């Protein structure tokens, strides 16, 4: 395989890992928790920026050609971890305000508004993350120490990304399949019923949102470490909707579904075309992708809203207890009934 094709595969694999983490994040927030996060992309964006500036070193040391805050040169994987933490922290701050409305459609509008404001602020105030031009020359993890060529290092990064993605998957799966995940789904179905059973639904919703923010930040951090650059053009509101399309087409609420959705929408349809070697990615190609995906999305939410792999309730088996004497006494039913 030629170097160009190898690098194509490397790019697709790394992007797939980062996009999977982002998809799982949105699936936690929207698929499970029912939070309409139309501002999703800013949480990926902040993760990328924080990971970048914590690898770049102090801004003054760069000769002043790019301006940014928080500059430091931390060893890997600290920038990655900090990027994830930044996603969670931003989700906490934004969520405290945007999740206050009772109506989830208003929450969604507030989140979208935050994202649009965030884009303007970062673009037009170059002192924060170097404005519209963005950050470049972000050091690669362990890049200097290994002394590998571009393609060899690419394969090394694939392995690194695979480990990070697998770790994220294991954590997300634990969350999704746990009583915590079940409560998140109950929150989506009926917040007032969940409140009537003793769960603080505002706190729960914020928790789901922040956990999602951590994984969104992680996905941005992973992307930035591969690309080596990060600018407002790397995290546009369009992309929020492509993640949403992937999660819904795959099967909102289903971990397998959002995984499949990300691979189909992002790896095959978007990046697969975008990074083809010797192929000039045109605005026409992009327009076709958007129209095709947009129509597919609409067909799914009208005809098959559960997606390709629908969410499934956990099954425990229908067990009859008739044979066991005494288990049906009122006292047994009451269980922990006090006094």
């Amino acid at each position, binding site marked *: 395989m030629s170097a160009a094709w190898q690098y194509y595969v490397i790019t697709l694999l790394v992007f797939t890992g980062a996009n999977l983490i982002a998809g799982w994040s949105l699936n936690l927030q929207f698929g499970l928790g029912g939070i309409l996060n139309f501002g999703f992309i800013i949480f990926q964006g902040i993760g990328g920026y924080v990971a970048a500036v914590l690898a770049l070193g102090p801004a003054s040391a760069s000769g002043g050609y790019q301006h940014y805050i928080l500059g430091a040169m931390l060893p890997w994987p600290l920038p990655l971890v900090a990027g994830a933490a930044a996603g969670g922290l931003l989700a906490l701050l934004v969520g405290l305000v945007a999740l206050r409305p009772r109506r989830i459609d208003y929450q969604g509008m507030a989140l979208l508004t935050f994202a649009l404001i965030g884009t303007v602020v970062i673009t037009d105030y170059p002192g924060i993350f170097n404005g519209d031009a963005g950050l470049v020359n972000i050091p690669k993890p362990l890049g200097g120490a290994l002394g590998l060529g571009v393609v060899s290092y690419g394969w090394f990064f694939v392995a690194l990304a695979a480990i990070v993605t697998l770790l994220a998957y294991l954590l997300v799966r634990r969350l999704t399949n746990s009583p915590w995940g079940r409560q998140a789904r109950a929150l989506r179905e009926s917040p007032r019923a969940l409140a009537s059973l003793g769960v603080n639904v505002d706190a729960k919703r914020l*928790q789901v949102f922040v956990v999602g923010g951590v994984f969104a930040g992680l996905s941005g951090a992973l992307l930035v470490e591969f690309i080596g650059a990060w600018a407002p053009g790397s995290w546009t509101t369009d992309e929020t909707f492509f993640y949403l399309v992937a999660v819904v087409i795959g099967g909102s609420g289903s971990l397998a579904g959002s995984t499949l959705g990300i691979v189909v929408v992002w790896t095959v349809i978007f990046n697969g075309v975008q990074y083809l070697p010797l192929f000039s990615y045109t605005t026409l190609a992009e327009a076709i992708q958007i129209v095709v995906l947009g129509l597919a999305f609409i067909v799914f939410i009208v005809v098959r809203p559960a997606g390709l792999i629908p969410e499934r*309730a956990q099954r425990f088996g229908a067990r009859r*207890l008739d044979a066991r004497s005494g288990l049906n006494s009122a006292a047994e*039913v009451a269980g922990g*009934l006090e006094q």
Partner: protein
Amino acid sequence: MSASAEWVNVGRITRNREEVDIALEVAQVRRYFGGVHAVDGASFEVEQGTITGLIGPNGAGKSTLIDVISGFQKPSSGRVVYHGIEIGSWPAHRVARAGLVRSFQLSSEFARLSVMENLLTAMPDMRGSTVAGALRGRRYWRSAQDAGLERGYALLERFGLGDRADAYAGELSGGQKRLLEIARAVAANPRMLLLDEPFAGVNPALARDVESVLIGLRDDGLTMVLVEHDMGAIERLCDDVIVMAEGRAIARGTMAEIVANEEVADAYLGG
């Protein structure tokens, strides 16, 4: 209506207050929506370990009062005292954690959760329901969930849903959803239940079975307040009946005493 607005003391209300354990006291509770006085100075007490019926014509303020007691709406004025603690300003989840659990008039099952998952969600202090607990993995919370499952199956059996554990709650019939909702409220380990029209749409034979479950729970010490339009069920289940009209409690007594009371009849007929 002016005559019926007076508190009519009938029946057991005359018992010495020192002798009874009061689970819930509603004192001059008002709840206004702009100029509408949905609850307008309701006062009554509920004795521990009894089933109290709350009846009255449509618009009497029963459901709003249930909302106020359970923390879903704040009283405009007045006090709600639960086992000696003023809870009028508490949010709904805190009221529920204190053991005062309500059901809803309109079904509010978790539709895309299975019937069993609905019950598990209600069980308090389930391991693995925090982020940290969830991240510790199945081994950490499995035994607690298994215990919950045992209890869940017993509950479902009791409520005639024994073979529906794995069905999506949204697939149940209207009557089965009502039953699941009661079962789910019981799963939350309540000391007191507020049931808002629990038998609406439940087939009569099954409703009779559930009545016996409720009586069994009462005999175990659970206190219940029941809003219901089925007077037969009220008569069979309730130790005491409170009649509401125009946002107030206008009469209280046994069903027989209530039926014999002319002012109550006036209230129902809009007299």
